[in-house]
């Protein structure tokens, strides 16, 4: 019998991480994700795990690097400015092929920005963030249940592909309360023969490293890593389609924006407008195929974002110029209203 609990999105992430076997958490307070740290501070000592408030986001991500190198599941969380600070460490995790889960409960930027919800770290999350050629697996939950289930998924995928994975949420998703179930089937962490957990004098020493001074070697590592990324793109794409079968207008949005957008789609349908919604759940790998398919039959695509237009670039690439793509957005912590999105849908339905 499913057991539902009413929880904040941030707390759901924390509890799901523990359910996924994460016994080590390192964080630094920043609004609007601090509930994750507070939850971990309460829970970890009771289950024999680690909660540590680091001296900075930089230290926290490097503590994550250490735990991951030793072969254990580990997580850190922050919000936009803090993720910028973690970007160095995330690049090192990617370069050393270490799995880890990083939570970004986005707030408005750039700079110190604001503390209200935003989706303006999409580029940072999906195009690398730190320096060098690499990707993160980026999962974008659309409700509190997914805050939990995608966190578990993030641990599994990070281990499966030996790469960092990120939950790309936002301040609203972090703060809102919804019922959640935690009855997951968790795939336990695989054997990690590469881990630096002591040789026990049984094997040659392991080295966790991202330095390769020989260019031929570094190139080889990068090519190998991108072969792995190609597998992720092949196997792990997730998205939701809503009323797409007969759609003439396509709207797309992820996370909090997709919730308002779905309302607008319902309102438009009531008015007889044939409109459908694609909600990317993985934003890296980006669900290119459903967009390519829809590009063959819709006359317009609207991308709804809490940013100045970031995901829209991936949408444009996916539709390959076959159909116009326009932006419907708010920024700085503002959320578009159903009316704003509906008006946009109506505008293109009329063929303006």
């Amino acid at each position, binding site marked *: 019998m499913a057991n539902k609990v009413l929880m904040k999105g941030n707390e759901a992430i924390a509890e799901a991480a523990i359910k996924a076997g994460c016994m080590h958490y390192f964080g630094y307070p920043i609004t609007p994700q601090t509930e994750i740290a507070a939850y971990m501070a309460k829970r970890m000592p009771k289950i024999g795990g680690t909660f540590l408030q680091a001296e*900075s986001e*930089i230290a926290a991500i490097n503590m994550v*690097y*250490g735990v991951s190198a030793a072969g254990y599941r580990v997580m850190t969380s922050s919000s936009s400015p803090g993720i910028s600070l973690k970007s160095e460490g995330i690049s*090192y995790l990617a370069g050393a092929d270490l799995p880890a889960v990083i939570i970004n409960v986005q707030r408005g930027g750039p700079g110190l920005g604001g503390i209200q919800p935003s989706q303006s770290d999409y580029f940072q999350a999906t195009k690398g963030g730190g320096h060098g050629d690499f990707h993160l697996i980026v999962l974008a939950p659309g409700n509190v249940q997914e805050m939990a289930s995608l966190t578990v998924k993030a641990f599994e995928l990070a281990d499966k592909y030996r790469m960092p994975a990120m939950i790309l949420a936002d301040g609203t998703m972090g703060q809102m309360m919804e019922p959640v179930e935690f009855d997951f089937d968790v795939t336990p962490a695989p054997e990690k023969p590469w881990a630096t957990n*002591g040789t026990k004098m049984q094997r040659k020493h392991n080295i966790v490293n991202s330095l390769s001074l020989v260019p031929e070697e570094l190139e080889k590592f990068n090519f190998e890593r991108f072969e792995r990324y190609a597998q992720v793109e092949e196997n792990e794409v997730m998205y939701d389609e809503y009323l797409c079968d007969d759609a003439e207008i396509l709207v797309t949005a992820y996370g909090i924006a997709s919730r308002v957008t779905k309302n607008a789609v319902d309102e438009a349908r009531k008015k007889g407008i044939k409109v459908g919604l694609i909600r990317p759940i993985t934003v890296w790998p980006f669900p290119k195929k459903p967009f390519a398919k829809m590009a063959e039959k819709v006359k317009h695509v609207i991308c709804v974002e809490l940013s100045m237009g970031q995901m829209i670039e991936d949408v444009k690439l996916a539709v390959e110029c076959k159909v116009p793509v326009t932006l419907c957005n708010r920024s700085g912590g503002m959320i578009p209203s159903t009316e704003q999105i509906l008006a946009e849908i109506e505008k293109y339905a009329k063929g303006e």
Partner: protein
Amino acid sequence: MVVFDKPKSLADISMHYCPGCTHGIVHRLVAEVIDELGIEGRTIGIAPVGCSVMAYNYFNCDMIEAAHGRAPAVATGVKRANPDEHIVFTYQGDGDLASIGMAETVHSAARNENITIIFINNAIYGMTGGQMAPTSLPGQVTQTSPYGRDVNACGFPVRVCEMLATLDGPEYLERVTVNSVKAIKNAKKAIKKAFQNQIDKKGFSLVEVLSTCPTNWGMTPKDALKWVDEKMIPYYPLGVYKDRSAKEDK
């Protein structure tokens, strides 16, 4: 009877350090201590960014390469992952530990993190070719202080042991050098204590080693050893700056 041989936990390869650089001596002392304490199989070393960036190749225990200055944070992670089993040491230079990584150094000390830090202070950035370090002496000529370190423009050197000794956190802080046979024997004692403290769960133990950089100091290896005595030790006096357990025993 063998009087002296390469320690087993030191890899049997040639190190990349310049002729006469004392990094090699300190590497060997760490390896000797690991051998004598019988901890190679459960030791994880953290290499820094700087001249000793490739230290991960020189020890036979498991090794991790950290981002610049972050070795104490990485060590914290490795240690907390399995505190009863893992013996964790970092090996860091002055730029890594006292400049870019100062926050990680101070806070791992404040937490009395049960790790061992070997801190190489040679008053210069070696790997990048001889720039001013946070520990460069007043008036010291480097590539980025070509007229000598001007304390009015770029401040004073940081005395790490003295600074950390003001904290309640750390267990053990000692400054040693390796510019003579006697000094090397003393340095080894300090390094051994810093590892033994970790085994005994006493906490944060840091050994600062005044070291040489003949290449970037522009000296012969022999003159570099002398320079430690003449210039460095007067500014950075050797000795124990904190030893909590010894104090409590009294």
